[in-house]
């Protein structure tokens, strides 16, 4: 208990959306669209009020402390190993609570307009509430176990929302893909969790991240491979984080997840859920920081994903896919920032969280803006847009702000967070990473303005669509305007003052680092301006000139095809097929055998049931004779003999059935039906 009402009642934050989910899903749904969305939004408002109040109290009264204001012992595995459910309050959890409640509330409001008239409208809002509940539970988790549970819940709600248009085959396969890929990655998380609970004998974050535990884990050597428990469990946990945050080898689900409604893409697949991986790594930061291999893995995978996704984004034409790859790239940025941080120089940690926050704002704004555009022209293809600035003035203005923010143009928020990441890379001596990040910043500016120019400037490509385009309803545009405010101004907040690990020496903007970043960003914008501001043949000619490379990039480096090849031609053929064969012929065979034997013994034994009274009498007589024999000559040998005769009969029936089966002459089920 801290004596501060909002912090003490922080468990209300996830509770409200959960109640909203239950109410909307079970009670209010039949009442129609309006009450459903109203209840869902009210739940979010209540949640946001408590969340903001708690964050305010935390940052004014308890800044820098780690509190557990409420905790419940859920599972006691052993005297030392206890699975707790509770609320963990520290700087990053409060930050995430702010981000999640705010963005989620805004997107609830936005969805009112965007989803209007959709037959699944109430369902959509109940799922949104479910997702928010899961995400807040994840953010506030006080133990790895609780986090894992909410982690999976988040996965499920993401699955439900990607597959929201379940009549569309592409949406169905996309949601399956997302679920299977992240679930596969979660296997790593689960293994890491088990390993931690085994070697550290505890599940609470406060316990796991304490220096003593980390040191103890680092000393523990695994019985196999001879490596220490710390890096291995950290990397396993990073597996789960990489799956959720769509890091390089596991990124394939995120672009496909854009099949969901656009508000879902904005909320789940840009602003909140996908940063859960970053959040997990940040949560476990002391563990990662203490182990060189783990932190290097985080850094390299983050850096590679940032570059890789940015390159792909340049060639895409689907507006949401460009944004999806951009999200991948920015997530890579955040991971990279975490990866360059150390316990001594933790600037990267702050930078990562900073970028997470600004990214949540501007990426949500971008997605919502894209949603507004899609709402207006009913297509995702940028080649069919163009010149929309006159039709969608508010969307255009807010979109421009977001583009400037992500491109890193001062004084918009993205500039500050990106600058901090670059500064962190330099501070810790990762010059190669710095150079790479700088390049990615240029690419980001280029593809974002390519998107911007193609959509809002240039010339209308599809005049019919252009003609019918109109500005979105007030409920949508107001959200865009609200989001534009933090997108523009969030960078001015002294972020390092609130969120940090260890002591940060406060520093201003280092223009030696910021200068090149700004230049690169402006260069990207300039190139995009030249190529896409007016319709011209230049982009096509460039694409033609580098057609080989272009095609590879446009097809996303054939990663999907690689996965398909591995699953279809390797796993299905060499793993699943033998298992299938084994299942069909051995497991099912055994079942068939049992059924057959029962049938056969029934068929033979029914002959003894003749319906003649005297037959039964005869059997009774024989039975009494056997009993008399047993009583008269009760010896072990006789008992064994009788046992063996009985077993022999059973074995004989089985053997006979086996022979029949080998000769393919048994079809028990059909015969049962016939009987």
């Amino acid at each position, binding site marked *: 208990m801290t004596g501060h009402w909002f912090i003490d009642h922080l468990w209300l934050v996830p509770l409200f959306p959960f109640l909203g989910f239950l109410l909307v899903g079970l009670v209010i749904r039949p009442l129609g669209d309006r009450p459903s969305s109203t209840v869902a939004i009210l739940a979010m408002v209540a949640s946001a009020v408590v969340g903001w109040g708690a964050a305010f109290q935390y940052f004014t009264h308890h800044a820098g402390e780690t509190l557990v204001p409420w905790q419940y012992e859920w599972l006691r595995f052993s005297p030392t190993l206890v699975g707790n459910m509770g609320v963990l309050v520290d700087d990053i959890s409060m930050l995430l609570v702010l981000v999640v409640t705010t963005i989620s509330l805004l997107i609830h409001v936005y969805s009112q307009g965007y989803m209007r008239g959709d037959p699944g409208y109430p369902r959509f809002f109940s799922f949104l509430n479910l997702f928010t509940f899961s995400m807040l539970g994840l953010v506030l988790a006080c133990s790895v176990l609780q986090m894992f549970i909410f982690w999976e819940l988040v996965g499920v709600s993401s699955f439900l929302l990607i597959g929201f248009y379940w009549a569309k085959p592409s949406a169905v396969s996309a949601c399956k893909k997302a679920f299977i890929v992240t679930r596969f990655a979660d296997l790593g998380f689960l293994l890491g969790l088990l390993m931690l609970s085994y070697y550290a004998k505890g599940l609470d974050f406060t316990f796991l991240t304490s220096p003593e535990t980390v040191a103890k884990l680092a000393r523990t050597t695994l019985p196999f491979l001879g490596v220490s428990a710390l890096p291995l469990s950290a990397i396993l946990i990073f597996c789960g984080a990489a799956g959720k945050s769509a890091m390089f080898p596991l990124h394939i689900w995120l672009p496909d997840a854009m099949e969901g409604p656009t508000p879902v893409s904005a909320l789940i697949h840009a602003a909140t859920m996908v940063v859960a991986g970053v959040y997990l790594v940040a949560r476990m930061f002391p563990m990662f920081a203490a182990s060189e291999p783990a932190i290097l893995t985080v850094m390299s995978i983050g850096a590679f994903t940032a570059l890789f996704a940015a390159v792909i984004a340049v060639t895409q034409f689907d507006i949401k896919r460009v944004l999806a790859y951009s999200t991948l790239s920015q997530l890579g940025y955040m991971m990279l920032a975490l990866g360059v941080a150390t316990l001594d120089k933790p600037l990267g940690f702050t930078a990562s969280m900073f970028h997470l926050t600004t990214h949540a704002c501007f990426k949500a704004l971008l997605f919502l803006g894209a949603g507004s555009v899609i709402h207006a022209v009913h297509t995702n293809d940028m080649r069919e847009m163009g010149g929309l600035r006159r039709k969608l003035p508010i969307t255009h203005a807010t979109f421009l702000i977001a583009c400037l923010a992500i491109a890193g143009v001062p004084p918009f928020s993205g500039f500050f967070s990106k600058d901090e990441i670059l500064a962190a890379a330099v501070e810790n001596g990762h010059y190669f990473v710095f150079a790479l990040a700088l390049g990615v910043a240029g690419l980001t500016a280029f593809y974002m303005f390519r998107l911007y120019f193609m959509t809002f400037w240039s010339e209308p490509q599809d005049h019919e669509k252009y003609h019918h385009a109109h500005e979105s309803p007030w409920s949508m545009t107001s959200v865009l305007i609200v989001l534009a405010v933090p997108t523009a101004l969030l960078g001015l907040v002294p972020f390092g003052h609130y969120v940090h690990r260890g002591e940060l020496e406060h520093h201003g903007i280092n223009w030696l680092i910021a200068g090149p970043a700004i230049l690169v960003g402006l260069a990207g914008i300039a190139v995009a301006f030249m190529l896409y501001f007016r319709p011209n043949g230049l982009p096509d000619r460039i694409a033609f000139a580098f057609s080989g490379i272009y095609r590879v990039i446009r097809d996303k480096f054939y990663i999907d095809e690689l996965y398909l090849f591995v699953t279809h031609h390797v796993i299905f053929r060499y793993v699943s097929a033998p298992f299938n064969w084994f299942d069909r012929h051995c497991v099912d065979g055994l079942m068939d055998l049992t059924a057959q034997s029962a049938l056969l013994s029934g068929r033979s034994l*029914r002959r*003894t*049931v*003749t*319906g*003649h*009274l*005297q037959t039964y*009498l*005869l059997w009774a*007589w024989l039975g009494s004779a056997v009993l008399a024999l047993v009583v008269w000559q009760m010896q072990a040998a006789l008992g064994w003999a009788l046992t063996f005769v009985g077993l022999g009969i059973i074995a004989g029936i089985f053997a006979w059935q086996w022979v029949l089966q080998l000769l393919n002459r048994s079809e028990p089920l059909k015969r049962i039906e016939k009987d």
Partner: protein
Amino acid sequence: MNGPTLEHYLVFSALLFCIGLYGMLTRRNLIAMLMSVELVLNAAALNFVAFHHFLFPGDSGGAVFPIFIIAVAAAEAAVALAIFIALFRHQQHLDVQQSDSLKG
């Protein structure tokens, strides 16, 4: 005394029992089967009395049990004959070797 011994009675009752058994398994009429059952029951009752008389004269069980057997036989005969009558009404004969409607 030079009277018959226990063994005489036992062998006699065994023979009676086997005749009853033979009758139960060969007679085709249900009433005839029932009569064979009575033979078997009498053989058993005679054994009780013989054992009582020769081995346990002080124990009244051997004398009481035949009474129970007779009572059970009476009950059995009453119910069985009622069933036979009902059955006869139903199928117009009492041939056990023709009645197999309970065949599995």
